[in-house]
């Protein structure tokens, strides 16, 4: 059994099955991509894995523990960290403060309303290391609203890394990126996967072919095919799903 196992996961929105009876097993140390045409249920599945949407039925087991009913903050504390498809940052914080906030999350220092913010200095060194890893060390003191999109995406990655996750859940990490930036993110994911497991929702098939060990193709809320990139690419059902009923 894998690090992350999903059994019969279903989400029904008023009679519409966004995700229907999905089984999934993510092996430790692999990069597992979730792909599929728009509306296939990738995002709903992703949000259920991270606790943001409660499933109608089914179970999610992470490292032997049933996490189906846990809220997002509890899931994050179990070292399952997610990134966001739409860049989701804190307007008021600098780049460095973002990473400090993430590092601080697993301590209980956040409750200390009676102490000075200066104590957060202890996270500075580690935060700068993480920023250097994603290539943002030079702009650590910049205010996040003033940095370009590609760097915001890199900061998303830095926030996930700061949580020291065992499982990274990346929701379209290359969404809306220029070709240069895509190359940088691919290199970054390669670099950070060491010792970790990655679940990747991705539209860009180039990225999937470069990174993924396993690919699960979703369609209309169900699993259509699963295998290596080569296997699913040549699967006629997958070609059908992506190109429509062209040779019917």
């Amino acid at each position, binding site marked *: 059994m894998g690090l992350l196992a999903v059994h019969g996961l279903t989400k029904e929105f008023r009679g519409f099955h966004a995700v229907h009876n999905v089984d999934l097993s993510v092996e430790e140390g692999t990069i597992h991509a979730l792909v599929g045409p728009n509306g296939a249920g990738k995002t709903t599945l992703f949000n259920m894995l991270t606790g943001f949407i409660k499933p109608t039925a089914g179970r999610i087991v992470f490292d032997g523990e049933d996490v189906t009913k846990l809220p*997002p*903050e509890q899931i994050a504390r179990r070292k399952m960290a997610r990134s966001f498809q739409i*860049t989701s940052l804190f307007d008021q914080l600098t780049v460095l403060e973002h990473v400090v*906030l993430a590092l*601080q999350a697993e301590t209980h220092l*956040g409750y200390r309303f009676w102490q000075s913010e200066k104590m957060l200095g202890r996270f500075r060194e580690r935060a700068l290391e993480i920023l250097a890893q994603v290539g943002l060390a030079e702009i650590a003191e910049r205010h996040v*609203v003033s940095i370009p999109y590609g760097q915001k995406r890199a900061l998303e990655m830095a*926030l996930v890394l700061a949580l020291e996750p065992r499982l990274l859940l990346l929701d379209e990490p290359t969404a809306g990126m220029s070709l240069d930036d895509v190359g940088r993110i691919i290199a970054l994911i390669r670099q950070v996967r060491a010792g970790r497991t990655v679940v990747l929702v991705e539209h860009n098939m180039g990225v999937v072919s470069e990174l993924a060990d396993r690919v699960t193709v979703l369609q209309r809320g169900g699993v259509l095919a699963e295998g290596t990139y080569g296997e699913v690419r040549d699967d006629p059902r997958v070609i059908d799903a992506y190109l429509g009923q062209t040779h019917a």
Partner: protein
Amino acid sequence: MSVRPVTVRYAGYALALIAALILPHIIYPVLALNIIVWGLFAVAVDLLLGFSGLLSFGHAAFWGSAAYAAGIAATRGGVSFPVAVLIGTLVAILLAIPIGYLSIRRQGIYFAMVTLAFAQMIYFVINQWRSVTGGENGIQGIPRTLLGLDLSSATTFYYAALPLALIGYVFAFRVVHSPFGHVLVAIRDNETRARALGYPTHRYKLIGFVISASLAGLGGSIYALGQRLADLEYARWTTSGLAVIMTILGGVGTLWGGVIGAVVVLLLRDWLTTRPELFGVATGGVFAVIVLGFRRGILGTALHWYRSGRPDAPIRRRGLAAARPDPTTVPRVKPEKGGR
């Protein structure tokens, strides 16, 4: 340009302290104390509105119940005035825990309405519970003593009460500039993301709510002893409204702006003391001008002008006033939908 922002900041605090010390010699001491405690009340509202993004329309519940508790403790229990203030503050905290627990699950206008509803419940309890609260007569002639000292003079009481109020102000500053304050601002800006990082955001918001209520309670307790009266008016919804108006006049998210708002509103009320019917019109007029013309509020606008000459000044202010860059210059990042 050569003056460091930190120097300016400390100069500001020194000036404020001097102003607080000489205030009862400029205006009459009862009014001076009112400004200090209403300012604290407005700071409490801003702690919640500017730094947690929650507009409470029911803070009179804490201000009023603390005033009654302090008044009853001093009148019936005969305790000294700092003990009465402590008891009032504790009552506000005890009320804030269940009220906050039930309110913080809602946001925006719903949060405001839930807090208003709870405040109305407190108001009716105070009104009906005559044997304890005196109904519409309130608690009158509240004594104030301290180790046998005579504190009946308003000036003496001002200086006796000022340290307690200052503790409240310092505490508010500490909270905003603490690790907790950082998390609170992050939750305000993007709650979904904060949860994804592992922060139980409801718990943080509840703590913020209780802290804010405790400051309102501290202010309300001192107010009752200063007025020697706990009146039903203190718990009325208009009292919540007045504190919100002071906060907005001074500048949401500036923390200290509410004090300036309190100065404006209370001086206005004092000048119009013979024409109370004009007070509402005058306050409303000032409010409209500030909101339409200077949407950052008085202190918020002043700070904005000061900073706009210094683009390299470090961004220290975390309040909502600074949190909203002009929409014309900076695109706002939309938080992703999801969660509960």
